[in-house]
């Protein structure tokens, strides 16, 4: 079939119209949220379905950022997310290097144990995690949330690193070792820098999960407003200010616009990361 003719065919046009129209509806909640964040509450009430604000004004953002403490929540989110991503990547890369490139005592036991727990029926494991972090005395700092988010086995990332490190030619580390490079230096200076694609994929995935986490920060910040993250802060804000629609929209925008921006800028890595989860 001639591609030029196919492109003009009514079916082709219809598909585009449908995909585009549904696509607008699909992201409408975010457009609505961002537009509402620039309106006043009075304007919100009378504007009905009108999307654009009369004039873009930032008082909602000022109110959310200062009065409602979203500046605190925002930086908590940033600190938690950055720490978790860095620690998780490091831990998984170390594990992936040892498991992927060397045979050592206990290797098989380790791999089997980590994999087997994925298939075990679990109870409500949040409670033991919560009491464990509490008994370590970390429940009054961001470290409690960070440790709880870092905790556990990251099977997907480990598998990605294992597969990648195993695929690297073995001459690489051998020649380095002949030149007198030790185990750690070979890893840190030669092998790790080569694994940038895996680091990028894992970092993006972990960034998304941690930035959006809700249950862990919720239980670790009960009664500790200064440790709240954006999601938890938003939850409290809406509970306390049911009539401040546009303040809510500004607060929600502060939470969502950063992750949306990172996604749009680096969407290839997001898609690859998610695809990696299904391909294994």
């Amino acid at each position: 079939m001639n591609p030029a003719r196919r492109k003009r065919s009514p079916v082709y046009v219809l598909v585009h119209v449908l995909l585009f129209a549904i696509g607008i509806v699909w992201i409408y909640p975010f457009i609505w949220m961002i537009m509402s964040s620039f309106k006043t509450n009075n304007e919100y009430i009378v504007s009905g379905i009108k999307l654009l604000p009369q004039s873009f004004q930032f008082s909602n953002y000022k109110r959310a950022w200062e009065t409602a403490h979203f500046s605190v929540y925002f930086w908590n989110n940033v600190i938690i997310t950055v720490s978790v991503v860095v620690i998780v990547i490091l831990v998984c890369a170390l594990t992936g290097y040892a498991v992927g490139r060397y045979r050592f005592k206990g290797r098989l036991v380790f791999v089997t144990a980590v994999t087997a727990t994925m298939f075990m029926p679990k109870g409500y494991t949040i409670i033991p995690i919560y009491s464990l972090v509490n008994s370590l005395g970390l429940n009054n700092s961001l470290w409690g949330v960070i440790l709880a988010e870092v905790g556990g086995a990251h099977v997907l990332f480990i598998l990605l690193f294992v597969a990648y490190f195993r695929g690297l030619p073995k001459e690489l580390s051998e020649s380095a070792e002949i030149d007198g490079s030790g185990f750690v230096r070979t890893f840190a200076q030669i092998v790790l820098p080569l694994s940038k694609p895996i680091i990028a994929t894992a970092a993006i995935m972990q960034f998304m999960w941690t930035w959006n986490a809700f249950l862990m920060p919720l239980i670790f910040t009960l009664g500790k407003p200064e440790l709240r993250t954006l999601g938890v802060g938003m939850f409290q804000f809406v509970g306390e200010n049911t009539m401040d629609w546009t303040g809510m929209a500004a607060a929600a925008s502060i939470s969502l616009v950063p992750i949306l921006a990172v996604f749009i800028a680096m969407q290839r890595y997001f898609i690859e990361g998610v695809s990696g989860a299904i391909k294994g």
Partner: protein
Amino acid sequence: MSMANRVSVADKRAAPLVGYRARRELWCLAFIAPQLALFLMFTAYPIVMSYVYAFFDWDGYGPPKDYVGFDNFIETVTDPIFWNAFRNSLLFMAYVVAVQVPLALLLALLLNAERLRGKVFYRTIYFLPVVTTTAVVGLVMRFIFGAYKGVVNELLIKLGLLTAPIDWLGSIDTAFLVVVLVGIWKTFGMKLVYWLAGIQSLPKELFESARIDGASGLQLLRYITVPLLLPVGSVILLMSAVNALHVFDLVKSMTDGGPAFKTDMVDVYIYRYAFSGNGGARVGFASAAGVVYGVAVMIISLALGLLVRWSGGRRNAARL
């Protein structure tokens, strides 16, 4: 491919160096030590304790002392509110999976068509909700579907489909439906990308030779694409089902299980007992409910896992 037989043969060559191998073994153990510690503390220990706590009457303060045998389990399985939440969770999962998985496949097939322009654009649009914070989205939806000046009501009234605004999330007739719709919308993009990955992993030569043999587009779909996608499809089904059965953030933020427990889900039910605050928490009981539900989810996964095996999806499932 087993992990053991592809390990570097550097071991043997390095053998003459006395002590070298032993030192390397130690380094390997040191490298896995952080992950091992995190695994023992935050995976293994919590799994064991999630069972242990279930046998105690415990408010979460101090060590659990009050052993009560199977009382918590008996209370769980005789509580109608638990079964209500259980039913809701199953229904939520069934609706989400039944709508999402086939529609995501349809869109993936469309986006995979060679001649369609703007693939990346559409993929980005439809994936967008996936990357957003579920709890925040849930709260935004509370306003969008709000009874007072909610944009859904305003729009439907303007279109003449409604005469008076509906309290979508406050009414027992509509709340569950709205939660399901938002649930489908929120994770749809994930299933789309799974399907796209599955489609792209299909062998291209097969399609070419079939086309040379004169197969039409629909025939390709019916006899090659869909049958070959069955294994990856069952994995998608399994993952979607387990995720949907553990819905929490969305329901907690949108309705908190209300109105009248109409949108109560098991994870929300358990949370209420585990972290109710004011010293009234019933951690032992919450743990027992967690075990009952964990076993139920395992049985459902096994049933779906058999489906995976039956459709030849072993290769994919065994990788994780």
